[in-house]
C-alpha cells in the first residue's frame, strides 16, 4: 500500500504563541508516507507544541495542517499520539488497554480483540493479556502503550520521547523493536527525542529544532542502509551525521551563554 514519494503530512506556515512567547514561529514541513522522521532539540524548542498541534489537542494561531490532503486543524483521532508517560489505565488489563481507543470511541469488537491479541502475541506480550499494568515492567508497559497507539490504525504515529524513562539496555531493545514494528506496519512515524544517537539510529530524516522562537533549523537526511545494527553506531556515515546535528544543537547552547 506504500505509495512512494507521496506526502502524508503537510504543514504550511503553522504558528503558535503563548502570551509573549513565540512557541512556534511559522513552520512549513512535509513528511513522506511511510518514513521515519525524528525531531531533536533542547527543552522549550516547541517540539511538544508542534505535536500537540499535529494531534489536534492545540489550535495553531495560524497556518494549515493536512493529513493525506485533508485539513485536520483542531480535530483529533487522525494521528496516534504516544507520550513519554505510558499512561496505562490501571484498572484495565493489557488487552483492555490496547483496545482502549475502540472502547472510548465506540464498541470493542471481536476484530479489535483479535488485532490486539495478535499485536501482543507478535511482540512478546501474548502471555500477559489478562495482566493488570501494575504487574508489568517499564519496558513492557511502554510496549503496551505503543500497541494501544498502533491499534488506532492511523497512518501517522506521533511518539513523544517514548523511551525517555527507560534504562539504556531496555532502551536499545525497544528501539530495535520499534523499527521492526514500523517495518511490519508500514506506518509513518514522527519521533521526538533528546538523544541524538537515538534519532540518527532510527530515522530516515532528522529535524533539528531550536528555541526562542521555536523553529526548525536543520533538516538532515540519514542515508544509512537498513537494517541497522549495533555496528551502525560506529560507522563513519553515522558519526558524520551525528556531528552535524550536535554542532547545530551546540551552537544554540553557545549563543545562549
Amino acid at each position, binding site marked *: 500500500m506504500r505509495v512512494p514519494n507521496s506526502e502524508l503530512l503537510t504543514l504550511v506556515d503553522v504558528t503558535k504563541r503563548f502570551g509573549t512567547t513565540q512557541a512556534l514561529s511559522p513552520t512549513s514541513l512535509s513528511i513522506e508516507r511511510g518514513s521515519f522522521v525524528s525531531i531533536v532539540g533542547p527543552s522549550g524548542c516547541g517540539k511538544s507544541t508542534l505535536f500537540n498541534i499535529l*494531534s*489536534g*489537542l492545540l489550535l495553531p494561531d495560524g497556518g494549515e495542517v493536512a493529513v493525506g490532503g485533508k485539513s485536520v486543524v483542531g480535530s*483529533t*483521532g487522525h494521528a496516534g*499520539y504516544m*507520550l513519554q*508517560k505510558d*499512561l496505562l*489505565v*490501571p*484498572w*484495565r*488489563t493489557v*488487552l*483492555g488497554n490496547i483496545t*482502549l*481507543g475502540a*472502547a*472510548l*470511541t465506540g464498541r470493542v469488537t*471481536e476484530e479489535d*480483540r*483479535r488485532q490486539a*491479541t495478535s499485536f501482543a502475541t507478535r511482540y512478546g506480550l501474548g502471555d500477559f*493479556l*489478562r*495482566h*493488570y499494568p*501494575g*504487574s508489568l515492567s517499564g519496558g513492557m508497559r511502554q510496549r503496551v502503550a505503543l500497541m494501544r497507539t498502533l491499534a*488506532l490504525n492511523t497512518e501517522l504515529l506521533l511518539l513523544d520521547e517514548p523511551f525517555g524513562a527507560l534504562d539504556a539496555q531496555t532502551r536499545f531493545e525497544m528501539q530495535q523493536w520499534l523499527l521492526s514494528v514500523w517495518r511490519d506496519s508500514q506506518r509513518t512515524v514522527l519521533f521526538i527525542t533528546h538523544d541524538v544517537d537515538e534519532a540518527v539510529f532510527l530515522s530516515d530524516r532528522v529535524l533539528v529544532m531550536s528555541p526562542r522562537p521555536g523553529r526548525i533549523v536543520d533538516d538532515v537526511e540519514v542515508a544509512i542502509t537498513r537494517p541497522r545494527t549495533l555496528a551502525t553506531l560506529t560507522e563513519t556515515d553515522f558519526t558524520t551525521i551525528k556531528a552535524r546535528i550536535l554542532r547545530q544543537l551546540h551552537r544554540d547552547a553557545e549563543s545562549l551563554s
Partner: protein
Amino acid sequence: MNRFKIFRNLVVPVISFSALIGLWELIILWGHVQGYLAPTPLAAWEAISSNWSTLWPLTSWTIKETVWGFGAGAVIGILFGVLMSKLRFLQRSLYPVLVVTQAVPIVAIASPLVLLMGFNLGPKVVIVAWIVFFPVTVNVLDGLNHVDHDLITLARVLGARPWRTFFLIEVPATITPLFSGLKIGATYAVTGAVIGEMAASSGQSLALYQHTQIGQLNSAGVYGTTILMTAIGMSWFLLMITLEHLCTPWLRRSVARRWSRGARTLDNTYVVKGAK
C-alpha cells in the same frame, strides 16, 4: 491470599477484639462494680439473647432505617459530587449550602422533621441520609477533580466521546475516594437512625427500649442495646469494605479473574460460545 495475610487481616483483629472484651470483664470483676452501674460483657450478652424475640423486631426496624437512609444518602451524595464536578457554577453555589447542612446540629433537626413527617420511617431515613450524603459528596467531588489530567488528555487524543471518558476513565479513578466517603457514612448511619428514634417513635424502637432499661436500672439491657446498635454500624462498614474489594481487583491482583469484563480475551470468548 497467602497464610500470612489471612493471619494479619483476620486473626489479629479477632485477638485484639477479644482482648478488649476480656479487659472489660476483668475491670468489672476486680473493681467490684455493682451490676446496676455496669454489666459484665457476659451479662450484656445474656440480656440480648434472653430477650431476642423482643429485640429482633426492634433491631430489624433500625436496620431498615439505615438501609433506606444509607441508600438514599449514598445516591444523593454521588449525584451531588458528580454534578458539582461537572458544573462549576453548581460547585460554587451549592458547596457552601451543603456545608451549612452539616453545621446544623443533627439533634436539632430531628424534632422539626417529626413535625413535618410524623412518627414513622420518614424522619429517620431523612436524618440518616442527611449524615451519609456529605462525606460521599466531598470525596466523590475531590476524586473527580483530581483524576490524572494526562489520562483525560490521552482519552481526547484517542478521540473519545465525553461521556465515555467519564465512565471508562473518571468513574474507575474515583472508586477509592467514593468508598472512603461510603465507609465514613456507614459508621455514622446508625447514629443518625438512633437520633431519629430518640426524637420520636411510635410504638417500639431500640432507642426507646434502651430508655426503658435505663428507667429500670437494668445496665445489662442498656449495654446490650448499645452492642446491637454498634453491630449494625459495623456490618455496614464490613459490607462497604467487601464491596470495595470486589470493585478494585487491580489493586490486589496482577492477573484479572476470568469472569471480569476486562479479562475477555479471544480464547475465553470462544470458550463461552462453545458452552452455549
